[in-house]
Structure formats: C-alpha cells, structure tokens
C-alpha cells in the first residue's frame, strides 16, 4: 500500500482538541506521523503528495444512522450509489439500520450487510460499513432477537430502527441483555399509539393544514419510560434523531443524574421547523416530523451544550414514486449522506457552534458512542480522513446527488463547505471533480 503525505493542511482533531496547520503522513493505512511544522516530514519515495493549500483535514465522518435499502429496496439505493454518496459526503464509516428486507435479526444477515460493498470495485469498497442488530425478532417489537449472536457477528448496538420498542417489558429485557453485552440500545423515541396516523408535528400549522398531528409528547413519553427502565437495568441507552425540547430536557437531566445516556439528531431538526410543510411538500415529510421553532432552538442549545452528542445524516432514501403522493400518503425520509457535512458547517458559519464542535458531532462522538476505532486524527489511528474547503459554497440540488434518491428538504439551499477528498485506511475513495 502506498503512502500519502498531506502537506500544508489545517488539521482538526476534536479528540485531542488539535487545530493546527501542519502535515500528516499516512503509511500502511494508518497515520504514521503528524507535525505542526511545514516541511518537517520527509515523504517516503513512493508517497503520494497531497498539497492541501491550507485546507482543512478532519477525521472522516462517522454516520451512525443510515438506511442502506440493501437488501430489499435497491430501487431506492444500491450499495454502489450508497457508497458513492457517502464518499462524496466525506463519510468514511456508515452504520446501517436493521430494517432491511429481510431484517438484520440474524448474525449471517448482519455479516452480509457489513460486507455489502465487497462486490464493488476499488477504491469504493474500502468504505467501512457497520450495522445495528435488530433488537427484536423481525422487528416485531415483542420478542428479543439473538442479541448475543448478533454481537458476535459484529453488531455495534441494537435497535428497532424506525419504530419504537414500545412494549415496556420487551424494552426492559433488551436494555438489560444489551447491558450484559456492553452494547448500546438505540431507540426511535415515538409512542406509536399516541402518534397514530400522524402526518406532521401537532401545532398551529397541522391545525391549519388539516393534517393529523404528532404531538411532541410522543418523544417525551418514550424517553421518560426508558430512563425509568434504565435505572433498573443499567447499560447504555441512546436516543436517535431527538427532535423535541421536552426530549432534550429529559436527556440533559439524565446525564446530570449520571445515567449512561447519549443521543443524536439530524440536520433537519437543527435547521428546519414545521412551517416548511405549508405547501404539503412531501420532501418535508420526515420521521420524526419537523417540529416547532422552539424545538429547533432547543436542538441548537442541546448541540451547543453537549446534551446532544452526535449528528447523523438519517439517510432514508425514497424513490420519486414514494414521494409523489399527497403529503399524508408519502413515505417519510430524505437523502442525507451528501449534505450532512455542509449542513452542519452552516452552524459553524452561522456562529452557533465552533468548528471543533461540528467536527466532533459528526466524527469523534458517534465513533465513541458505538466504540468504533474511527473519528480521530492521531498516531496509529486508521487513516480515515476528509479534506475539505470550509468556505467554498455550493447549492444543494437533489438531481446532482450520487445517491439514487434525490429527495431533500434542503433543495436549493446554499451551503458552505465542500469535500475535496475522502480517504479510508489511506485509500482515496473520493476526489472532487
């Protein structure tokens, strides 16, 4: 494997709180030298020299919530388009949800999910694919899946994907068993009965639009119950795509109490609110739904004070047919891999978060939550790296996505921050054209 030397780059590493202009040498897929002096690292003979021109070098993004659509829905996304989209987005590790068809409730299915890029050509196959095991068999929400075997098969956590584990007894047992296995339980916190047939956030806009509301209490109820269970079972509880002020307040309190609790959100909940639905545009049909402006502000506060640990793309590809329907009939979700980094950088450019915070939320923290050896620029770490121009602007256009799904609630939005290159284990998987 050839070596690569990154010269004149701004190295940003949240784990060590490093922000320095310097050099980084990659050999054998690992970071072998770091320096804050220009010209101090001697390039090996065969090394590829990358002149960063002062651009930022950050840990490759770790996206902890991705729907791969493979197997079962490759008309929405194929392994190839998924990998291309991730690489363009500066993402070096993805963690897939188990709601494929068939479901990842079997260790062999899970292993095959993690191997789904094996058939691709170099270099894209280098992208790292992890997966959560199904918390319950067939995601039925009732009977515990083979958590131990799934863990042995490489599961990095357990979840019922886009549904809550709503049976309290099942949830208690899953939490308890996962604690024994030292694995996190990832919860989509939404009381399914209270949310029944809901179409958008319940509030003034749902009332005016005549759309059935999903009250913010659906999240609060599930988190509050789960925290009660967690006090009995111990273990690590993680709330996915948290979206309400009430939910965030509970997580904040639980952390203060000393419970092992983490949570993530996704860019729409930090950047959009329920007013976006006003024309029944199905691009804004998401789960959880876009919330009230007060909730959005609470998400920003949670990101700023560390209550929210991570941000995932929540990549949920949908084909046009699934979205070309009246709002209430359209599928939820959007294509998120290619916009995660730029959208999060908008919080840095807008002054809400520091650059270090943004990078930590999308690389170091998710890796830490799931125990992945990723998300850091340090000696001997895997050379999963993203080189980007922090300031170069572009416009989000779904039709230009590498993903098979071009549906985005950010269609037309101007953003700042362009990925120039993505490396996994020192292998360049993306180069800006």
């Amino acid at each position, binding site marked *: 494997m050839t070596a690569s030397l990154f010269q004149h780059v701004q190295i940003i590493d949240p784990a060590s709180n490093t922000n320095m202009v310097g050099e980084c040498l990659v050999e054998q897929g690992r970071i072998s030298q770091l320096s804050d002096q220009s010209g101090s690292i001697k390039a090996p003979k065969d090394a590829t020299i990358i002149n960063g021109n002062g651009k930022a070098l950050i840990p490759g993004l770790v996206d902890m919530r991705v729907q791969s659509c493979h197997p079962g829905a490759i008309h929405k996304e194929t392994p190839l388009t998924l990998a291309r989209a991730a690489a363009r987005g500066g993402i070096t590790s993805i963690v897939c949800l188990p709601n494929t068809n068939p479901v990842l409730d079997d260790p062999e299915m899970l292993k095959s999910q993690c191997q789904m890029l094996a058939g691709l050509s170099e270099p894209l196959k280098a992208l790292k694919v992890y997966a959560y095991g199904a918390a319950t068999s067939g995601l039925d929400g009732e009977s515990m899946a083979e958590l131990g075997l799934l863990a042995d098969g490489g599961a990095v956590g357990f979840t019922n994907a886009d549904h809550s584990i709503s049976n309290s007894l099942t949830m208690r047992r899953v939490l308890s068993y996962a604690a024994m296995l030292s694995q996190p339980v990832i919860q989509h916190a939404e009381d399914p009965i209270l949310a029944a047939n809901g179409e958008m956030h319940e509030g003034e806009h749902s009332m005016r639009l005549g759309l059935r509301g999903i009250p913010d209490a659906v999240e609060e109820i599930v988190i509050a119950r789960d925290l009660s269970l967690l006090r009995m079972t111990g273990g690590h509880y993680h709330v996915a795509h948290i979206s309400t002020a009430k939910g965030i307040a509970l997580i904040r309190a639980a952390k203060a109490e000393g419970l092992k609790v983490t949570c993530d959100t996704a860019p729409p909940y930090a950047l959009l609110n329920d007013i976006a639905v006003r024309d029944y545009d199905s691009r804004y049909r998401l789960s959880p739904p876009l919330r009230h402006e007060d909730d959005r502000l609470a998400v920003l506060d949670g990101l700023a004070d560390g209550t929210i640990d991570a941000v995932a793309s929540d990549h949920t590809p949908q084909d046009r047919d699934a979205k070309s329907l*009246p709002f209430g009939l359209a599928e939820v979700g959007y294509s998120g891999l290619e916009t995660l980094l730029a959208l999060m950088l908008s919080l840095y450019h807008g002054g809400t978060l520091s650059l270090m915070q943004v990078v930590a939320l999308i690389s170091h923290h998710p890796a830490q939550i799931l125990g992945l050896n990723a998300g850091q620029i340090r000696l001997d770490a895997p050379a999963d790296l993203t080189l980007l121009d922090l300031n170069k602007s572009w416009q989000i256009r779904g039709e230009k996505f590498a993903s098979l799904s071009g549906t985005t609630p950010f269609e037309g939005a101007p953003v700042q921050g362009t990925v120039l290159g993505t490396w996994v284990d020192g292998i360049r998987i993306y180069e800006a054209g």
Partner: protein
Amino acid sequence: MSVDITSVMGMNTSQPPYLASDPMGASALPNKHLLGIEGLNRPTITSLLDRANQFADLPAREQLSHLKGITVFTIFFENSTRTRVSFDLAARKMGASVVNVPVATSSIKKGESLIDTAVTLNAMHPDILVMRHHNSGASLLLSKYVNAAVINAGDGRHEHPTQALLDALTIRRRVGYIEGLNIAICGDIANSRVARSNIHLLSILGANIRVISPTTLVPTHITEMGVELYHDMEEGLQGTDIVMLLRLQQERMQGAETPSQREYFRRYGLTREKLSLANPKALIMHPGPMNRGVEISSELADDVERSLITAQVEMGVAIRMACLEALAFGLTKPDQRNMK
C-alpha cells in the same frame, strides 16, 4: 350593521341584463385554481357571492351558455352525493360539458397514483377539474400536474371552499348581511374541512366566530384562527345568530373521540331547548348529511322557520356556477394551452 345586498345588486329585477347576453359579469379569481378560502381576500369573496346571488335568482329552468365549449371533469375519491350532483348541475346549467370520472370502477382503485391519474386526465384537455380527496393537500398536488383549473371539492380535513361560500350566500340571502353576526360552529372541528373553510371565510366577512366542541374533537391551537372556544354548548350558544352544525362521523361516536352517541347528543346535539339560549331568531345550518338525533333533533331539522339546511343545498348550485364561471374566465384559450 346591515347592508342591504338586494338593493345594491338589484337582485329582484326579473332578468338581470348582463345574464341575457354574452359578456361575462364575473371577474376572474386572482389565482388559477380554487383550492381554499385561506388566502382569498374580501373583494374576491364578495364578488363570487354577488355573482352567485344573481344565479340564485334565475328561473329554475334557465339554461345559460356562458361556459359553452368548456369541459368540466369531476373526480371524487370520497363518496359524495350532494356536492357532486351540485357541481354537475351547475356546470350543465352554465352550458359546459361534464364528465363524471368514476373512481370506484376505474384504474384508480387498481393502485394508479393520484399523479398518474392527473396526467392521464390532463391529456384529455379538461378545462376545469373538480376533485374531492381524502388527503389534505391533494388538490394542491393535483394542480401542479394539470393545465386545467382545479376546484377543491374537499381535501381531507383541510378545506371545502365552495361549501363555505354557499353557507355565506345562504346567510346573506336570509339575514341580509354577515358582518357582525355571532356564528357558532358546533361539533367535530378537528376532522372537518367545512369548519376550517367557514372559519376563514366568515372571519374575512366580519362575523364573530365561536367554536363549540368537546375537547377531543377540537384541534389544539384552534384559537390561533381567531375564534372563541366553548366546550359547554349552552354557554356557547348564548347570543348567537347562526348555529352551524357539523356532521359527526359514525366511527368517532363509539368511544373513540366521544364516549357514545347518546352522550354526544345530550351534550352537543341541538334541541329546541338549547336553541332557546341563542338569539330569538337564530338560524340553524348543517352541511349534510345530517345524523338526526346526534347533531340535531329531528324536529328542529325540519323546522322551516329556523333551519336553512334545504336552502344551503339550493345555494350550492348557484355558488358553483359562479366559481366555475370565475375560473373559466381566467382560463387561457384552448389553442394557447395546446401550444405548451
């Protein structure tokens, strides 16, 4: 405050001259489609009501030719008798050709999407599409895929603009004015498109709207629409001039959103006794179809002195004539459309 519409419009003359000849008396709607009341302004609404008022005074067998050559498609994804027949009749009276697209027996039931249906129908070059659909926002979606003008004949729980217009016309013709009236809208507000359209329209025309509903049938934030909210019907009816009842769907009566039919009638069914708390000449309206003994006592429903229910149906045709005409007036010529 009372405005005598009849004298302003000269509606009692036997044959308004502008209806006898070709030039159209109506002005086009500001938008190409009629998707809802929200967003319409008072002059537009008033001109539609004025025009419909003229149509309402025409002899029953009068056949007009204002919409000669215009093709109207009605497509109802939800069952409807009165609204569909009303649109059909209105279009025919105006001289338009009408095609009632059957949904139950068509490919739509076979899983064809709304957009595919729209594209297919669009290829037949209808001028006006009248659609009812069970999803809120469906008519807006349709309007993006067709060249025709779209009239929303009810979309989910969102709006039913022609119902609100016909209600307003009914009130205007009976009372003479709307400004300043106290109007109570009673019943299932949460699931009602009629309620939303009426709240918008009657507020624009200056009425004071109150909503009377059990807590489980009223959407949160309803007061943001500028209405007063009452849960006690007897309290809410005091001082009202118009009591507008809404239909309660059968499936909502049995313990889901309300405990039972008899409890609903006891608390929210309109009886002569409860009506006595309203203003002495208070009038009753209902968009139909009525559940006798649920929203209203049978005896009151048939009281011609107090009930405007039959008049509402009658005004439906006149309103729809005016709406069809206003949209047709704004249409580009067919040969221009074909060039696109």
